[in-house]
């Protein structure tokens, strides 16, 4: 009996704990559908668990053990045996699996759908960050017209589907925002599509779900769901060039130390070393976090990150460019100004 109590208590625990975040506390259409499927399967699955548990308990409690080690039970009960086997092994699974299959198919078809007017967002996985591309304001698709880049923080309008075009530049990654929808792999040489609809404004945790190397753990991102107008405002800002009035010396230092990999749109138009190997930093200061949602956007964290990228995020591709003291402080100041 101890054993049965042991089996039951975690199930209860699951029930109690299931309210806190993640898959079971969704804010997106796809995740809401999947939560429905989960509870449907959860309750149905209690049927076989209860049946097997009760039967085993009865077997244990009856204590029909014989004193004579050589005694054997006659086996003329084979028809009754077979009836139990067919009922438990065939009928029971079929009765449970058919409704599971129906609801699973319904869940798969009730997903948010995209059409030619759906906003397209390109996300390309890199070891270990996310390159994000939007169509310029006024345009919904990536293929016709101008686009702009940002990184690691994805903004979406609330209440409408957004179609992600998922690609990878190096190894396989997987794009997962548990509260919004299921995950989709990002595979080099392919473009996968995933349509997500956020139903409530808020900031949601995204994470790479396919092991992608040393800092797989540190490859996170944020999804910011905003009302339509707010989102369009954000898109307008992000599409524009970097702010005016940046210190020329600081920009010179940036060009020398960071410009090979990082772009500041509208600043280095005339130069040959404009980089797109790393994240676009044009509006870096407007982001909530740094290093693919690794550290908060504070001067201290930024200083730590630039001074020792390998120590903060093992295996990442950003070199230590050797900035120290005032140079480092200037660089931090510049980056913070890039609203």
């Amino acid at each position, binding site marked *: 009996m101890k054993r049965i109590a042991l*089996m039951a208590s975690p199930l209860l625990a699951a029930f109690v704990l299931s309210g806190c975040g993640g*898959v079971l506390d969704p804010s997106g259409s796809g995740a809401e559908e999947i939560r429905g499927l989960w509870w449907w399967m959860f309750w149905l699955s209690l049927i076989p668990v209860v049946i097997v548990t009760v039967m085993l308990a009865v077997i244990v409690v009856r204590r029909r*053990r014989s004193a004579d080690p050589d005694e054997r039970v006659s086996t003329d009960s084979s028809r009754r*045996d*077979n009836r139990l086997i067919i009922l438990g092994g065939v009928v029971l699974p079929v009765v449970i699996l058919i409704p599971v299959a129906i609801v699973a198919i319904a869940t798969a078809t009730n997903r948010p759908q995209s059409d030619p007017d759906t906003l397209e967002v390109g996300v390309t996985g890199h070891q270990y960050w996310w390159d994000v591309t939007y169509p310029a304001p006024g345009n919904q698709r990536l293929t016709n017209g101008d686009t702009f880049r940002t990184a690691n923080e994805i903004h979406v309008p609330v209440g409408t589907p957004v179609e992600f075009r998922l690609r990878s530049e*190096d190894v396989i990654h997987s794009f997962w925002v548990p509260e919004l929808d*299921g995950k989709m792999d990002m595979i080099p040489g392919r473009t996968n599509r995933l349509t997500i609809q956020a139903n409530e404004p808020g900031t949601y945790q995204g994470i790479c779900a396919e092991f992608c190397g040393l800092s797989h753990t540190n490859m996170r991102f944020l999804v910011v769901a905003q009302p339509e107008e707010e989102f369009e405002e954000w898109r307008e800002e992000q599409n524009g060039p970097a702010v005016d009035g940046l210190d020329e010396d600081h920009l010179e230092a940036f060009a020398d130390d960071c410009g090979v990999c990082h772009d500041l749109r509208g600043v280095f138009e005339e130069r040959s070393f404009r980089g797109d190997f790393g994240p676009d930093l044009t509006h870096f200061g407007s982001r909530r976090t740094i290093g693919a949602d690794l550290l908060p956007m504070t001067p201290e964290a930024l200083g730590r990150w630039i001074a020792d990228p390998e120590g903060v995020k093992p295996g990442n591709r950003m070199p230590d460019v050797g900035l120290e003291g005032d140079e480092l402080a200037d660089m931090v100041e510049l980056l913070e100004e890039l609203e």
Partner: protein
Amino acid sequence: MSSASPTPDSAEALDRVWRNKPGLWGWLTAVNHKDIGARYIVTGLVFLAAGGILALLMRLQLLTPENSFLGAGAYNEIFSMHGTTMMFLFAVPILEGLAMYFLPLLLGTRDLPFPRLNAFGYWMYLSGGLLVYAGFLTGSGPDAGWFAYVPLSGPEFSPGQGMDFWLLGVTLAEIAAITGAIELLTGFLTRRSAGMSLGRIPVFGWAAFVMSAMILVAFPSLVAGSVMLEVERLFGTQFFNPAGGGDPLLWQHLFWFFGHPEVYIMLIPATGIISMVVPVFSRRPLAGYAYVVASLVAIGLISFGLWVHHMFTTGLAILGLTVFAAASFLIVIPSGIQVFSWIATMWRGRPAFRPPMLFVLGFIMIFVLGGITGVMVAAVPFDWQVHDSYFVVAHFHYVLIGGVLFPIFGGIYYWFPKVTGWILNEKLGQVSFWTMAIGFNVAFFPQHILGLEGMPRRVYTYRLTDGWELLNVISTIGAFVFAVGILVTFISMALCRRTGTRAGPDPWRADSLEWLADSPPASYNFQRPPVVGGPSPLWSDPGEESSALTEALDDLRRPHSETREVLETSPVDGRPLGIAYLSHPSAWPLAAAVSLTAALVGVLADSDALVVVGVALFLFCLLGWASGTIHQNAPRPLPERPIKAAGEGASRWGTIFVAVPALGMLGALVFSYLLLAVDSPEWPLGQAELPLTWPALVGSALQAGAFALLLFARRMTSTRATISMLMAAVLVLLGVAVCSYWLSTVGVSPVETAYGSIVFALLLYLAILGAGFAAALGVLLNVRRRGFLPPGADVDSGNMAIFAGVVLLAWIAISICLLVAPRLV
């Protein structure tokens, strides 16, 4: 059982023939199934301990958020090694080892049909395991996971040698598994006791059969994949590289075509153990024996239709996914049948809950929960959420620990007395079981919830703000409790002489033949091979013995001319066919394994000299091995024996079972070609010209000629058959020459595009297959030259005709791929 009391002097004489040579040399040259089986089991348990320690290190790292105990690099290596160890070096080998030890005893025979192959397999497994760990311990451990997804595991993103150690070591372990499977399948079909028809074979025997058949079909896919990946790392081919037209998903298909059946390869023998234990301790035969056997076969078949259910999130078309989801649902039925067969057996039996039965109960509960979460993850949309999350980690540990480790432990408590002569201490068994059961659930149940809360797999740490700390702490505590439970059984085994009790031949009053042998069994297992009259031989009347059979079995009580003799039986009804001979201890298997390992170390050390020497030595060993055994293995007519000469059973079935993985490799390569072709915007890539047509026609014709010659040779006299074989060998070699010319004229580079890579792979495989076949013919011809000729129907040419058919199939399939498929794509 009616068995006359053994006469001591003949037992002594039998033992002289069957026992190992004395000393270290005897240990190194041992080939007996009990020695080899026990080595697999002990080595498997050592790897279980190693993998377990790695798991505890991981749990310590995850104990607190942002823990710096291990760091990212060490953690990634450790989780890769944990999975690799448990899947490749613990579970499959220990289950094959149990089958090798017990299958002959269960079937009532003295050894498996190819003892030297068995020994070779063990040495390959050992050196594979050591190779993988050598990489780990010398600081270049593999860190791309046990699944080794490309491109992460490819040359660009894993430049270190860890992956090379991993690929070569794992390939050796896979080849070992294949040799074991050939052995077990052939033994199952041809080496049983008189009267043991298919319907009377114990369930564990059936489970070993299904497991081995699955290994034979599934493992070549991974061997092919591993070799392709290693070649990609060494020489820069483009199979998996999208920049060269390759496809990273190709690796996933090849891996999971092996990887999903792998789960059932472990589960099936484990449930086979359960089906042995439950009836004995319930004091009645298994309920629904036929249903259970049919379920095992059904699971074996269905499991090959599941592999894509590991790829639900890769963006494949939803319709295809639905098919694989349906197959995943379907497999619940045979699993459910087994569960209710055990319940029915206990329900109407008188179960006694000794330690083996405790593990059965724990197994059923945990397995049912693991099966249920298995159905959940097979529901495609739910998998989109929990795939690669801790929910899946929890699910497969319920299936693999509950479904495989618990039965193995139940099997250890059940069979330990047979192997050692000691019954393990009852109290320690209970303590171990309860500690393991509680620790396991505490460790793994919370991981379901962690997954639902969004914690992904394979992360070396998490953040305080994630809110995952409490459940991780609970999980770590549970893991340590679980480890203590395992340790108790290890201690109990180590101290069995002090804490256990002496066991007679049949301490459990069980029903199957292994309990007829001594504990531990004599070197020859049974002095007089038993006769079987029902599915529970020790509980029912012995079978009828004709006077001829009585005479033959009595005759087997004594050795004849220092040879190891066993009864050969017919595959379906277990009719005695004759006496077959088995090979004696030999150092060739060890020497062959060592030289092959040396060649692989040469690859790792980038030493061409070592590779050449290793390969040359390996071929020399094979030659020495082959020429020494063939006349010993060949069944001969025995006029002085009352029953007709042994048929060609073992060699015929053995040939077929070697042909299957050769075809499996072909299948994997053809699949790769077609997948690459279908997924490419243009094919052949880079406007390459198609290969020449005439070599396909000429080569296929030559090979068809060899096939026909060998088919006809079966009915010829020995001298004419020899001439036919010689001619066939010449035709095959001409075919190899044509293939080589073909390869030299394809006009594409194997390292520029995936098209070039796969064309080279197909043609090289064809050439190797042909050359290997010609070599086999050469060995046989050499043996014949020395005067060993098969009697009656020419067994050799019949067997060689099977291989010729395989090579012919390869010619046709590859020709179609190269010449017809591109025009259709």
